[in-house]
């Protein structure tokens, strides 16, 4: 038997065990999430730039469903903070209303911005884009959370003069 068999077996077992622990911690839902997550762990994950640019174009034309489809294509593993920020922003803009907000969309936006914050180094995410009213994930998160909160300010008639950010 080759003398390297046993050390190689040990390395294999340790790597396999690490993969198992990672999958239990990360709970990936799809194969794309799993492979993307593993690639991100070793710093090899890249978004699909063309799809991201398409998504950005749709987003700026207020075509939010199309934008999210393109962003999902660009970041199938949901491992890129900036893409997740734009996805959350698309939920915010689509769900925002002068009289009332769409809670379902805001909740999905909150989930996406939480993912973005979790992925950003140190939890701080700033997106330099002059077309956006909010450039940080914290602002966006606050806005989404305020939209989901029920309080007396919801009855304020001046609310109809508010602007979408």
């Amino acid at each position, binding site marked *: 038997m080759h003398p390297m068999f046993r050390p*190689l*077996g040990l390395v*294999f077992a340790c790597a396999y*065990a690490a993969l198992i622990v990672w999958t239990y911690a990360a709970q990936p839902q799809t194969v794309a999430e799993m492979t993307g997550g593993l690639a991100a762990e070793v710093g090899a994950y890249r978004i699909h730039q063309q799809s991201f640019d398409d998504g950005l174009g749709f987003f700026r034309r207020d075509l939010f469903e199309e934008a999210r489809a393109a962003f999902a294509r660009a970041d199938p593993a949901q491992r890129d903070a900036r893409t997740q920020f734009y996805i959350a922003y698309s939920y915010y803009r689509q769900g925002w209303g002068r009289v009332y907000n769409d809670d379902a969309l805001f909740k999905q936006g909150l989930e996406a911005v939480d993912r973005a914050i979790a992925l950003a180094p140190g939890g701080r995410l700033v997106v330099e884009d002059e077309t956006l009213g909010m450039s940080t994930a914290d602002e966006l998160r606050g806005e989404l959370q305020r939209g989901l909160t029920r309080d007396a300010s919801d009855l304020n008639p001046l609310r109809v003069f508010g602007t979408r950010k």
Partner: protein
Amino acid sequence: MTVAREAVLLPAIFLTVGWLGGFRMAESVRLVPPPLVTLALAMLLVGCLARAGVLQPERLMNSRRTALENLSGLVVLLSLFAACAQVFNLVTPETGLLHVLFSLFFLVQLLTTLAAVRSRVLMLRGLAVLLGSAFLIRFVALEALYSTDGGTLQRVLTVLMEGFTLGALEYAPNAPVTGYVAFLVLSLFMAGLILLTDVAEPSDLPHLPASPDVPELPRSSSAPGLPESPTLPQLR
């Protein structure tokens, strides 16, 4: 037993069992880590396996082996423990009264086995029956009873059962693929245990000196002091 089996095959089998043992698929995929009770059950099962001779820890780790060989043996033992824990996690319902009942049943069964079973073959047979029965109850009977596409009679039966137990009998059904994965996992686990038996060459065993308290048996067929057994007359 080859080095390949000990260093690669057995860890691969047991780690795969440990990985897929927590697999549940319903509306989404979940990987369920083992609860504490399954760790206790796994410890008992490893004890049972060692007492019955299915697992021979002294062949996996001893002072005659090199550090690398002992490390390799330790990996087998740890992966076996993880597999045992996940096998119980797999066949035990996750919440409610059923979780408690299944866990208690496994505990009593393993204690009985620990006290009584000394044979490798009997141990493997008993374990196959135990895990097979639990698989059938959980992934055939309970899944059919609690499936979401059942008819009115089934729903009435489920509501009655939950009513009798004051809501303690709760069960969350899984997609059919979970049952297939469970079958694969249990088959792999049993295959791993069969392969585990002859895990090391006899030459790996330390040659322990005979105990001074136990006198060596005479080499002759009859004990000293007893008359030689008479030879039977040949029949013509």
